[in-house]
Structure formats: C-alpha cells, structure tokens
C-alpha cells in the first residue's frame, strides 16, 4: 500500500510541476511578446547570453570543424572522394552539431547562471518583493531573458556553423590536399535550404527550451521537493536545470530529425 502512496505522491508532484512550468512558459511568452519592452535589460541580457558566449562558441566551433575535417578527410580518402569533405563538414554542422553543441555551451555558460540568479532572488524574497510592489516578476525578470536568448542563440549557432566550416577548410585544404574549389563547391551543392531550415527550427526550439527550463527551475525553486533551501538548494536546482535542459535538447533533436526527415 505504501508504495502506491509514494508513487501517487510522485505522480501528483510531477504533474503539478509540469502544470506550473507550462503556465510559466505561456506567461513568459506573453510578457515577451507584448510591450512595454525593457530595452536596457534586454541589451544587458544580450550581452551576457550572446556577446560573452562569442569566444567559447568561436573556439568550440573552430575545433569541431577541424575535427570534422580530420575525420572526414581520412574517411573520404578511402573512397577517393576527398572533394566531398565540404559537404560532410557543412551538413553535419548546419543540421546537427551547430545547434546541439552551441546550445550545450550556452546552457553551461548562461543557462546555469540564469537559474542561479533567479533562484537566489526567489530564496531571498526578492521575487515576493517585486510582486508586492505590483511589478510582475515574469515580465520584469524572465521576459528579457526569453527575448535575449531567442535572439542570441540562433545567431551564435550561425557563427558556430561558419567558423566550423572554416575549421574544416583549414584542415582539409590547408593541411591536407583537398582543393579550395572542391571543398566549397561540394559544400554549396549539398547544403540546401532544407538543411538551413532544419537548423533554424532547431535553433528556435532549443533556445526556448534553454531559457524556459533554466529560468523556470530557478523561479519555482521554493516548490522543489527538498525545499530548495539556501545555497545548496540553489546549486542543486542549477545542476538539475543544466542536466534537464541538456537532455531535453538531445531528445528534442531526435524528435525534430524524426519529424523533418
């Protein structure tokens, strides 16, 4: 009997959490979509989520492209078609690795920080204080993060793709013997609008997932099972948010692939 009780309690807890998170999502979207926009806060967030992720993204993008170039070159050499390297590097970056790796990096850099920031504000009653001042905390705190993430993550993904293609070029053309023209021609021939569209969809869906899960976990810190108390509560929620958003991105990646291929 006891076990049923535990299962039922678990079930109810997660259903309630899912309900809260869903309402939170739509409130945030509504607040982000309607004026007044908090321009200065959005710019601050763009700087934090976007501009300051640049270096990491350039770095990971470059090396991902170089690894792809290296692996792809040796693979293609066996088949005598090294010119297809551009296609291989481009397609993997645009369709898969660009969106996924960029988002994982953004989660690690900005997502965790968002969760911790909101969580600390929840813990120290700052969110309650906002509500008592008749200021909607979702509009005030969350909406600018939604807008900034939705703008900067797709851009970061584009940058990741471009620099990655450049990395593949360095390895394939500069280090090995793929021709300059062959690399870019095969890239141009094989990466089509379909692939870009897939990349775009992923970048939009992933950015929403990142900002939703990370801010939501912080916002509902006090509703956590273990109470989310203190510094440890914040760190636990942050870890949870990072893991959950990373996993959801991989799952969502699969779903989008399954739907769009």
């Amino acid at each position: 009997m006891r076990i049923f009780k535990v299962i039922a309690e678990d079930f109810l807890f997660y259903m309630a959490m899912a309900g809260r998170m869903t309402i939170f999502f739509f409130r945030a979207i509504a607040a982000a979509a309607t004026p007044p926009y908090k321009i200065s806060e959005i710019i601050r967030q763009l700087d934090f989520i976007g501009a300051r992720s640049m270096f990491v993204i350039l770095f990971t993008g470059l090396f991902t492209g170089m690894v792809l170039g290296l692996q792809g070159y040796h693979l293609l050499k066996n088949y005598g078609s090294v010119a297809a390297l551009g296609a291989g590097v481009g397609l993997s970056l645009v369709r898969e690795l660009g969106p996924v790796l960029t988002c994982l990096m953004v989660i690690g850099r900005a997502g965790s920080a968002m969760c911790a920031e909101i969580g600390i504000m929840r813990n120290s009653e700052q969110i309650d204080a906002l509500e008592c001042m008749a200021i909607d905390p979702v509009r005030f705190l969350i909406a600018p993060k939604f807008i900034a993430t939705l703008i900067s993550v797709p851009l970061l993904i584009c940058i990741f793709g471009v620099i990655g293609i450049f990395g593949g070029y360095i390895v394939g053309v500069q280090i090995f013997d793929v021709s300059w023209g062959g690399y870019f021609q095969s890239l141009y021939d094989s990466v089509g609008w379909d692939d870009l569209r897939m990349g775009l969809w992923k970048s939009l869906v992933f950015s929403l997932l990142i900002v939703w899960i990370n801010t939501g976990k912080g916002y509902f810190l006090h509703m956590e099972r273990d109470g989310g108390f203190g510094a440890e509560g914040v760190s636990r929620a942050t870890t949870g948010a990072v893991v959950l958003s990373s996993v959801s991105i991989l799952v969502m990646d699969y779903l989008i692939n399954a739907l769009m291929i």
Partner: protein
Amino acid sequence: MKLDGSLYLSSEEIVIEFQGVEKSFGEQLVLDGIDLTVMKGETLVIVGASGQGKSVILKHMLGLMSPDGGKVNVLGKDITKIGRRELTEVRKRFGVLFQNAALLDSMSVFDNVALPVRERTDYTEGEIAKLVMDRLEMVDLEGAGDKYPAQLSGGMRKRAGLARALVLDPEVVFFDEPTTGLDVHKSNEIYRLFRKTRDRLGYTAVIVSHDAPKIFKLADKVALLAEKKIQVLLPPEKFQLCDNPTVRSFVLATMGPVYDSAREEVMA
C-alpha cells in the same frame, strides 16, 4: 468572537479582515483560527515571540501565502480568490517592508527606491530623481544612493526598504520589524518619520515589531500572537492592563514591573 468589539463598523471602512485563518506547513500548525480587523487609518501592531507566525500573518495579508482555512479580505477583496490582475491592482495601494528588506541586490539603492516609480508611473527621470532623493533623505540615506545592498549595514538596508515602501505614497503599509537592527536614535527617527508620513498620507498600517513597549506609542491597536492564535486585539493602554495571563506575561517580560504598579493603581 470579536475581540475588539468592532461589530457595528461599516464594511467599507474595514481594510483588512481575517476570519478564522488557518495555516500549516507540512505537519506544523502555525496559525489556528486567526481573527483580525484593521480599520481605515488605523495602525495595528502585531507582537509576539519569535517564530510564532507574525511574518506568516503579514504574508497572508499580502497575498503571498494562502490560508488552508478561513478568509482573508483586503481592501474589500477576498485576496485568495481574486486573479493575478486584480491582485496587482490591490497591491498598487500597498507599501511593504520585508523582514529582511528584500532589496534587489543587483541594483543600487537609488534604483531600488526608484523601481516602483519607474515601473508603475510615467514620471520623467528628473522627477524620479527628485522623488527618490527626497525619500532617501527622509531615511537618512542620501549619501548611499550609489551603494549596492550588499555594501550596506543591516539597519541601512531596513531604511532603504522603508524608503522604497513609501516612495509612491501607499494607502496601506506593512512593515515587518521596521526598527529591528537599528540603534535607539535611528529607531526613534523611524518612529518620528512613521508618524509624520502617516499624518500626511493617512495610511493604514500593520506593523510587526519586537520593540514593545516603544512601538505602542504608534499603535491604535495591539494584537498579541501566541499559541497559534491572536490572544487579544486591544488599544495599547488596555493591552498593557489586560488580564489575559499570556498578555500579562508578555507585558511583564517586555516592560518590567514598572507597569505592574500602574495596573494595581487602576485595579484599586
């Protein structure tokens, strides 16, 4: 049972009304049938030992917590039943000081005090600066506008919180321990400030305080929270002379025997 004999007061004058409010956290019962009324323009002081649930009562008034049983009416609205938008409208008439001040810690003191003005009015930056500087002067913080909450002392944070609570001339103010952590001079200063702003704005006030008996000078009514209930709700003079044993021991503990003889005089 009406503790204050306010049976025949008209309902639009009631600003806050609790009817049999119950609240538990998990297994722990904190409030067990709280009845309270606060009339317009009145100052209610809630006293009681630490951990009795005074802040919890305040959070019910603010709509931050909802009771497990009973009713909470604030400004004519059942605050647990109204929607978010209506609740926001009610809260626009509030000025709130949290026990821990709850300043936004990534904003300077100036921006904290300016926040409600920026968010809720269309004052120009010049007007905002004037208003905020006026409020900061009021609480003796005119030099600390550029500081961040983490750079302030506990008492300074309290005062900054007070400035923020009073910046938009509220109708109802809720102060959770406004003078805890302040020295005698500063707390006297706050009391003077409180009286001055109340006379000017005529607000209704709910103050939680440990500073008995000094705080009684400001009170129209004093409520003692003990054993999960409001023991009495009385004007301060009557409170100090009340026969209820819990109140007696509270009064004796906070005021010492000086008042005892006064009581004997009255009793005689």
